[in-house]
């Protein structure tokens, strides 16, 4: 189970929705993430936005995208309206190419067969470290979150796409607990810790798309979503997030993309 755990509090006002009322923030996340996936890739996907995005990519520009689920599922076809509640139930296995044990599917990451790890996150910091274990001091936590699941393994071993809501309390200077490693303290500290492969590739939010500096490994804005200003994204980030003056603006979700998403999740479990 990858770390798609929401923080234990109501979400704040949805900025992107205010700007472009034709889609929800979750739909925007799913569409923007889907566009990052490439034909022929293998993607290790958590449930929720990552799964929706992967299926959307399959149904648009990447029909040969292979989805892996942590439960031990390789190359399934998820049925519209029957989204699995986790990556470990039989709904995930529908018309899969192969089922293996959990340990085997995680070892595929270690062996290098997975191109992209794709998950949500509760808290992220400047260097892309993710926290889904503790809010507050781990010795006396304010909130004990569900923990890593495969999140640590995926983030340690694959190139990562993270999809999450862009809020100041989620984008923090330093996460309370590194559940899933990004670039640790930046620079080459990740490789030094014994993690020479993988690492943060993109962070997709309802405000924009972020990448990481090639040398410092600090997060930086690559593009802003329609209607989002540099000021807005900085205001919703708890650390200094560089926004290039010429940051491009993403293409808004198309009708086709939105209609596929809404067919997949008619009950709006993940896209409300």
């Amino acid at each position, binding site marked *: *189970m990858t*770390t*798609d*755990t*929401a923080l*234990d509090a109501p979400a704040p006002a949805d900025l992107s929705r205010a700007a472009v009322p034709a889609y929800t923030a979750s739909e925007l996340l799913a569409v923007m993430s889907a566009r990052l996936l490439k034909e022929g890739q293998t993607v290790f996907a958590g*449930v*929720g936005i990552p799964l929706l995005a992967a299926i959307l990519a399959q149904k648009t520009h990447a029909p040969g995208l292979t989805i892996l689920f*942590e*439960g*031990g*599922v390789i190359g399934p076809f998820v049925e519209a309206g029957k989204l699995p*509640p*986790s990556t*470990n*139930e*039989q*709904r995930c*296995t*529908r018309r899969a190419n192969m*089922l293996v*044990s*959990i*340990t085997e599917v*995680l*070892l595929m*990451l*270690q062996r290098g067969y997975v191109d992209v790890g794709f998950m949500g996150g509760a808290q992220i910091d400047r260097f892309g470290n993710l926290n889904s*274990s*503790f809010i507050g*001091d*781990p010795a*006396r*936590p*304010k*909130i*004990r*979150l*569900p*923990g*890593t*699941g*495969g999140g*640590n*393994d995926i983030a*340690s*071993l694959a190139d990562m796409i993270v999809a999450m809501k862009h809020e100041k309390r989620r984008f923090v200077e330093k996460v*309370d*607990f*590194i*559940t*899933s*490693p990004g670039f*640790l303290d930046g620079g080459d500290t*990740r490789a030094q*810790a*014994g*993690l*020479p492969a993988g690492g943060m590739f993109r962070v997709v939010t309802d405000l924009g798309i972020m990448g990481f500096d090639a040398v410092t490994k600090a997060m930086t804005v690559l593009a802003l979503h329609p209607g989002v200003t540099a000021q807005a994204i900085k205001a919703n980030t708890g650390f200094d997030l560089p926004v290039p003056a010429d940051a491009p603006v993403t293409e808004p979700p198309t009708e086709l993309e939105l209609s596929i998403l809404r067919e997949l999740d008619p009950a709006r*479990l993940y896209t409300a």
Partner: protein
Amino acid sequence: MTMPLAYSELRQRTKARDRSLRDKVMSLEAAAKLVQDGDHLAVGGCTASRTPFAMIWALVRAQKRDLTVSRSIMSTEGDIFYAAGLSRHLITSWFSQGIVWGVSKVMRDYTESGRARFEEWSHMAMGLRYRAGAMGVPFLPMRSMLGSDVLGRVSGNGAGPADPAFAAAKTMECPFTGETLLLVPALNPDVAIIHVQRCDAYGNAQLDGLTFMDIDIAMAANRVILTTERVVSNEQIRRQPDQTKIGFFTVDAVVEVPFGCAPHECYGLYEPFYSHMDMYAQMTARDPEAGAQDYLERFYHEPKDWADYLSRIGMAELIDAQRRGSAIHDD
């Protein structure tokens, strides 16, 4: 603490078991006697799949205490272990009923108050710890958890203190490549409880669909209790020996319990009983302690038998779960 046994100790324990081909069919109550207070209990399945709930139900009713419980991912049953007083120490990679129900209030209540331990390892680490136990080696090397506080918390140098009751992982420099590797310690549970679609009276089990970590858990454990939807003949098993996933030689008890995973799912037979799981989440949302006790009373202590438990979940729920579960074969 679940640190690796010396090899001679592991071998002694295995040698002392009756591993012969013999009839092991018994009741839930008899099987519960194979679990001792203080044991390390490993639970098969994952999240809401093939959770051996009938056996857990029997262990709650038998008032087991001081268990250390491990599982790849903990769902509803993790709450039950805490709330029923069976365990104050769970070892897993993720713990909550499931993403759609949010963070478990029962888990939060017990762990944030310091009344119970939730020892967190990465999911692959859980798998390799069981696998090391299954292989008869004290550790396996791996390449994740490094650099994270998940490792720090089980080796004493991360954010927050390492609990001395937690097992430790160790880093090493690879003598072949010079790289940093993590060595995770073997888990050899005292008892494993695993639910299967079918097995014979000797304990030869043939699993369909997702196997999770169950094969390694069965090989690693010192005693294995299988609950099964059906007991089939040994003749049937022998016609397709390449479908046998758990061998009789690891198994100590076989209990036939139809719908033995309710309200969770059993691959190909029934999906989770979602309405019941929604109800459980609601019951424990406001006052986790009182809600869980109320739930235990109604569904664990009051029922006269497993069929009564199922009838309290409800016939319509059961029929619907079965219809959804068998639909996977309809394509």
